């Protein structure tokens, strides 16, 4: 792994490193016992990588995903995202980072049922403070990019599962985030549709998008160029593989 520099506390990551965690820990105080979900995770992910994070349940992959997604803050250690240390940012700044740097794709899509596809995709742009016209243009463009240019005025219940996930992906991409962060993106889809979504991910990766995907399915992880396996809160394996 010649491309990965050795990182020490006090260093600044190289500019092509999008995600850098250094001795990242996360502990939950459950009253009677202390749950140590992460026990010092150090990983570096570079621009335009396609990484799958695997591990059995309880391995800490969800905790790592929440930390990378800035939904949570670590107990100790450093987390650098796109050149900025975010491990000790305040609530509002984390919201801004989530808005600008991260595009979430969830297992259950998480679309607003009452809003049509276009409005669902617009959501992050509302919080980015864009004008209504500007928002619509960019949301329409994002929907076209995932192949749903003709479904903009459909509500989620008028769309198939695969189409819903595409809307969610369009929403994740609309603010041009540094990373696309997917949590079991095919978990609620049949295998054919899952493959379609994986093909879309491949396409996005080919066009320069950094993708981080949490999954427990071996054959889904196989689509990624690099697989990081967690076990008991630490990195067990970190392998590159042929696509």
């Amino acid at each position, binding site marked *: 792994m010649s491309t990965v520099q050795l990182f020490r506390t006090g260093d600044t990551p190289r500019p092509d490193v999008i995600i850098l965690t250094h001795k990242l820990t996360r502990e939950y105080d459950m009253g009677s016992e202390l749950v140590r979900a992460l026990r010092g995770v150090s990983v570096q992910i570079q621009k335009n990588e396609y990484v799958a994070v695997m591990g059995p349940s309880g391995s800490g992959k969800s905790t790592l995903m929440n930390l990378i997604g800035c939904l949570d803050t670590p107990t100790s250690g450093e987390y650098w995202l796109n050149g900025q240390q975010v491990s000790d940012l305040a609530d*509002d700044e984390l*919201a801004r980072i989530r808005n600008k740097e991260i595009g979430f794709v969830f297992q259950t899509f998480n679309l607003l049922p009452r809003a049509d596809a276009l409005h669902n995709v617009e959501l992050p742009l509302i919080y980015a*403070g864009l004008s209504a016209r500007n928002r619509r243009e960019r949301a329409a463009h994002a929907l076209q990019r995932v192949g749903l240019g003709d479904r903009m005025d459909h509500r989620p219940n008028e769309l198939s599962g695969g189409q819903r996930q595409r809307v969610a992906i369009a929403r994740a991409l609309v603010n041009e985030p540094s990373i696309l962060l997917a949590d079991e993106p095919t978990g609620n889809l049949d295998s054919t549709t899952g493959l379609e979504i994986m093909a879309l991910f491949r396409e996005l990766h080919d066009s320069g998008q950094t993708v981080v995907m949490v999954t427990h399915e071996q054959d889904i992880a196989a689509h990624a160029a690099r697989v990081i396996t967690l076990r008991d809160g630490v990195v067990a394996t970190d392998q590159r593989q042929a696509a």
Partner: protein
Amino acid sequence: MPFYEAMRLALQTIRAQKLKSGFSLLGVFIGVASLIGAWSIVNGVNRYMTEKFAQTLYGVNTFQLRRRPMFTPNVPDSVWRAWARRPRIRFSDAEAVSAGLTVPVITAWQSSDNVTVSYSNKEARDIELTAASERYFDIKNLNIELGRPFTGEENRSGAPVVVLGDAVKQRLFADRAPLGKSVRIGGVPYRVIGVVAKQGSILGFPLDRFVVVPALSPAQNLVNPPGILDAFLVKARSELEMREAIAQAEGIMRGRRHLRPRQDNNFVLETSEGVQQFWAGISRILVVLLPGVVVISLVIGGIVIMNIMLMAVAERTREIGLRKSLGARRRDVLRQFLAESTAIATVGAAFGIVAGIGLTVLIDKISPLPASVSPMSIVLGIIMGGGVGVVAGVYPATRAARLDPIAALRQE
């Protein structure tokens, strides 16, 4: 998220959940409707009092020289006894004041008591007999519908002529022509020369049960001892001139009564303000009671909205988590839910205003109470309705804003 985005989102949510929103705005609706309705009654009676009541009973820019105030609510016995010891107003007092005033005015004598008026075998009981001089009709704004008022000459000569109030005419003559007929007042025949147009009633008091005769006609003995007046009426052209005339009359009367500077007046110069002050007292009581009703319904309305909003936050936990993951800050979520509760309350207030105005029109039409909508009550209704929404929304919105996005997203 800018304010208008929050408001648009709120209105979308309300439209999507019409029934629930309808229930939640009921409390504010009732509160604001009762605010407008009750306020309109107070306002209407107020205007009635100042515009109609005071003018009818006193006349515009008119004051009365009397032994004691005409309108005397809640007066202790000691005051009553002091008033009873005062000397009465004499014809000579009225003549002296009339002669001494330098301000252009019209004046009238007036003495009244209740009598029975009869015509052939018909009787009208409890009729207010007023013995007055000829300008009384002008000062009191009494419109002669039929015939004519009596003249100065008739007044001075004490001619037995009478002008009837509408109720008396109806009672004694029904549809027949009254003019020229002879009615009996205290056993004395009086010739009917005029009828005053119907005036209706004020707050249930009939205004048409009266007759007017010349001050020096035989019936003067029925209303007062010889040479004594109930009141001397003075009408000026403007409020300013009226004030001037009051000052002059006071000086003249104090001179005639030989009052020293330290001594209080033993007579009153009364304007319509007295009645209005009395009414102001009543309306103050209403103004104190009114907020009670309104506040109770608004508090209930607020509690209802708060509950509905707490339910909404619980129901939409996932949505909140999602919005947070997409970059909504705490204040964005706070604003969204605050806008929603405020919008619900404001819509409720708007409906309440419409209903309140409807209520006002209804009260005005079908009850004896006059009612008219005060613009101020509409403004206040909107502000209070919206305020309730904000206050009721703060707690649920704060809870929504504080939700942990991870937990919120995980919720089913």
